């Protein structure tokens, strides 16, 4: 603002001409339109060691203008003094007089109006015997009314050493009278949620029962403008004051000034703060105007009952996960063990509890790992395990071994070292718990696609609540088995153990092998046909090893011979497959495009959308079962494809089979955390329409019906 500059310039000119001090460019007074500031001294006994010496900056504010206290409140800056004194003179800090509350609409400042003196105590060094003390001061202050003006000045003053300087005695006396009195009030404070609760046991009698204003010396802790609630109980005082919603500090101790505004007196006390400060910025107390805030905040939910209902739904969801194709065989295994133990109820219940613990802990561990990685800025979502080819290969290996065991190719007790097998038998509880862990690991390929959206939302919850949801999910998953053990009638209803168990076991091998087929297909997408074939070879060799070492009815010599041969074959296979297996940790571009679908990029979407085209994006991954089902059925449906063509829809596919930060970012933008996501960008609409995760021909066609056929661009 040029006029302001001019004003300052003229002020400076006026100051310079009005004060004829030939020796010094600066004088003791600086006058602007807003303030008259003067450097003053108080040395009633002259300037000598051991005698009192006070310096100060006296500020007289023009009506309506104010400067600030050490903690200026919601805006403003404290006045600063920089002294230049002869060597060994020590100037103390400003001894701030009691501040006032200065409201500015919904905001609150702390400062001074009218006449103010900021006194500073100065220590005179031993051996000082000059006739004059030359004092220089650089002072800066911010003075505000409607407008704020940063002002400052260079001041100079000479104080005679051998004479009394007490022209401003009354002014200094007034400033001292306005000092807060230090008290030992046995004060303490604690943080309770979004509130700071301050208590003091023994405040001076003069203050008791009075309304006290609370001024913390640390800025940015409390909500300055909020109404504090105080209570007197004899000499005991309690104050509850909301914390600042944008609190950037969480001090362990606070110094504060309490002011009785009516009497013009006050005390200063320090106290420790106990209790945990909420994470910075997490206090959801009212900002300047709570009414306006709630009106414009999009999210409004009821906390307590909603959360209980959520936990309940998570339990139900977890129970339904048992029907997933990769979970069911494992569950079946457990139920068989169940039939075997139908007689020993106590053992059964203990086992079931251990199994439940294993499932719940595994869910918690996976969720915690995911939350931790995301907090660390990793671009991953649920199902992230499957983005690692090594993990997929390991899963294929595990499933093959389980399948072979179910099919009866080998027996565990023959393969495992004797003491390990005995350990399993001797520790059925640990065995049950490990089965629980296995169930979760094994289930993750099937659950992953469905957890994506849920986890995207869970990321908005505090970590503790999100983890509680996942624990409930695990509990739900373990629940059917747990209930069956606790309900003896159910156990008795199961068929008696018999040859059917063997047949059932063999039957369960087939879903296991089917899962292996699918995992290898995923692997093929990730690392190509050579890598997948290498893993397939390794699996075959491993099957040979398992048979050689674990098949029943084989003589000692034969087992030794076959065992040695199988291990050699396994070694050779690994050596042969090694070059292709090395691709396990070197990513290959996943193939997603075909003639109709082009690879996705945010730029391509924006470009096509800008031309008025309709864009459909399929966010998919090879390891996502739902994605594949949708892709093979609905998105390959001739009617749907014809609809796409008719409307000139640009089809794009974003393949998240491997980790890809750009796709993760885009998913986050769409509020999702996993695939599948189907986004339809309609012409003229900034935000895409998101279709359900489980597509149907009808759903896609209905969505497309919003695009008129006439908008099809030529060509």
């Amino acid at each position, binding site marked *: 603002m040029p006029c302001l500059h001019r004003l300052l310039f003229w002020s400076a000119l006026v100051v310079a001409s009005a004060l004829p001090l030939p020796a010094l460019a600066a004088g003791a007074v600086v006058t602007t339109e807003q303030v008259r500031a003067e450097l003053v001294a108080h040395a009633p006994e002259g300037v000598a060691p051991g005698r009192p010496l006070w310096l100060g900056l006296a500020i007289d504010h023009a009506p309506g203008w104010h400067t600030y206290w050490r903690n200026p409140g919601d805006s403003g800056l404290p006045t600063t003094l920089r002294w230049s004194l002869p060597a060994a003179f020590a100037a103390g800090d400003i001894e701030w007089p009691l501040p006032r509350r200065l409201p500015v609409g919904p905001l609150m400042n702390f400062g001074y109006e009218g006449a103010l003196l900021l006194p500073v105590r100065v220590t005179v060094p031993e051996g000082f015997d000059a006739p004059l003390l030359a004092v220089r001061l650089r002072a800066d202050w911010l003075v505000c009314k409607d407008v704020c003006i940063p002002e400052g000045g260079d001041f100079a003053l000479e104080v005679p050493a051998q004479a009394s300087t007490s022209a401003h005695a009354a002014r200094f006396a007034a400033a001292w009278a306005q000092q807060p009195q230090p008290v030992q009030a046995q004060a303490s404070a604690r943080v309770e949620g979004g509130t700071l609760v301050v208590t003091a046991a023994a405040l001076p009698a003069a203050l008791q029962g009075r309304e006290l204003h609370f001024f913390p010396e640390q800025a940015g802790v409390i909500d300055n403008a909020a109404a504090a609630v105080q209570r007197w109980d004899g000499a005991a005082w309690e104050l509850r004051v909301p914390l600042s919603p944008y609190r*950037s500090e969480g001090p362990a101790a606070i110094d504060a000034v309490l002011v009785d505004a009516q009497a013009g007196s006050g005390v200063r006390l320090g106290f420790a703060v106990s209790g945990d400060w909420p994470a910075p910025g997490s206090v*959801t107390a009212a900002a300047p105007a709570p009414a306006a*805030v709630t009106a*414009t*905040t*999009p999210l409004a*939910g009821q906390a307590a009952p909603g959360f209980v209902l959520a936990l309940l739904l998570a339990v139900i*969801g977890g129970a339904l996960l048992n029907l997933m194709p990769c979970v069911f065989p494992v569950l079946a295994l457990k139920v068989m063990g169940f039939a075997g133990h139908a007689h020993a109820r106590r053992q059964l219940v203990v086992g079931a509890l251990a199994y439940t613990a294993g499932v719940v802990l595994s869910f918690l561990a996976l969720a915690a790992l995911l939350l931790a990685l995301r907090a660390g800025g990793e671009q991953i979502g649920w199902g992230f395990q499957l983005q690692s080819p090594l993990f997929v290969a390991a899963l294929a290996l595990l499933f093959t071994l389980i399948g072979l065991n179910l099919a009866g190719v080998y027996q565990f007790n023959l393969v495992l070292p004797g003491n390990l097998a005995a350990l399993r038998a001797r520790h059925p509880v640990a065995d049950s718990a490990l089965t629980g862990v296995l169930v979760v690991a094994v289930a993750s390929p099937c659950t992953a696609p469905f957890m994506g959206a849920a986890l995207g939302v869970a990321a908005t*919850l505090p970590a503790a609540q999100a983890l509680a949801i996942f624990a409930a999910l695990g509990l739900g998953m373990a629940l059917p088995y747990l209930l069956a053990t606790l309900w003896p009638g159910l156990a008795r209803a199961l068929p008696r153990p018999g040859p059917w168990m063997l047949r059932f076991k063999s039957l369960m091998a087939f879903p296991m092998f089917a899962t292996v087929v699918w995992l290898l297909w995923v692997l093929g997408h990730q690392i190509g046909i050579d890598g997948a074939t290498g893993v397939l070879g390794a699996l075959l060799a491993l099957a040979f090893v398992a048979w050689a070492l674990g098949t029943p009815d084989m003589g000692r010599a034969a087992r030794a011979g076959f065992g040695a041969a199988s291990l050699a074959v396994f070694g050779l296979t690994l050596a042969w497959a090694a070059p292709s297996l090395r691709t396990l940790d070197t990513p290959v571009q996943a193939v997603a495009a075909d003639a109709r679908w082009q690879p996705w990029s945010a730029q391509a979407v924006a470009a096509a959308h800008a031309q008025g085209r309709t864009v459909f994006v399929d966010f998919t991954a090879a390891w996502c079962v739902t994605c594949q089902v949708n892709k093979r059925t609905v998105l390959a449906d001739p009617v749907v494809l014809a609809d796409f063509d008719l409307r000139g829809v640009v089809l794009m596919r974003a393949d998240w089979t491997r980790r890809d930060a750009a796709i993760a970012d885009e998913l986050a933008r769409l509020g999702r955390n996993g695939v599948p996501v189907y986004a339809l960008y309609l012409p003229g609409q900034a*935000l895409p329409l998101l279709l359900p995760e489980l597509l149907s021909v009808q759903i896609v066609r209905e969505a497309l019906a919003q695009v008129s056929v006439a908008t099809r661009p030529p060509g």
Partner: protein
Amino acid sequence: MITRRPLLAAALAAGAVTAAIGLTSPAAATAAIGQPAPAFTATDVYGRSVSLAGFRGRTVVLEWVNPRCPFVRKHYDSMNMQRTQMDATASGVVWLAIASTAPSSSQHLAPAALAAWIQQQGAVPTATLVDADGRIGRAFGARVTPHLFVVDARGRLAYAGAIDSIASPHASDVDRATNFVRQALTELAAGRAVSVPLTRPYGCAIHYADG
């Protein structure tokens, strides 16, 4: 290996889980770090309607501005604000300058005057919004000019506070200060969490309209 039944079950499970988690979203009483930023629609100095929701997917900076405030001028006279704006918008960030000063205040500038000032400063905000009734400022808890907020691509508040680390009205301090907004934008662009999400803003109190 995929049959209709398990898929249906899985869909039900997924639905239950999603519903479960959706229900527990905490009620946000005001703008808070990590929480969804308050939604708003406002008119800019040229009369265009601008909505925060329209920028979902992009990082948005909100800058409370008042050309009559010396702290605002500190950052414009030194070109600090314009440079920060240029670098931000060049990398795809949306920059909204917002004036919440009440028309009754002596500090108020008419939209046309504000537009002229922005242009004269060589400033490049995506839009300059007029918040005469102070609704947006109050919803965000904006206290001073300049007070800056960064909303991440997911619509959550990622930074609130000062433009930089030295609370002074002197342009000469700009070079020595840490620019918190620049730092937050760099961290968000790298996919990292904002290391300093909250600072104490300094400047001139915003003169809000009554109510």
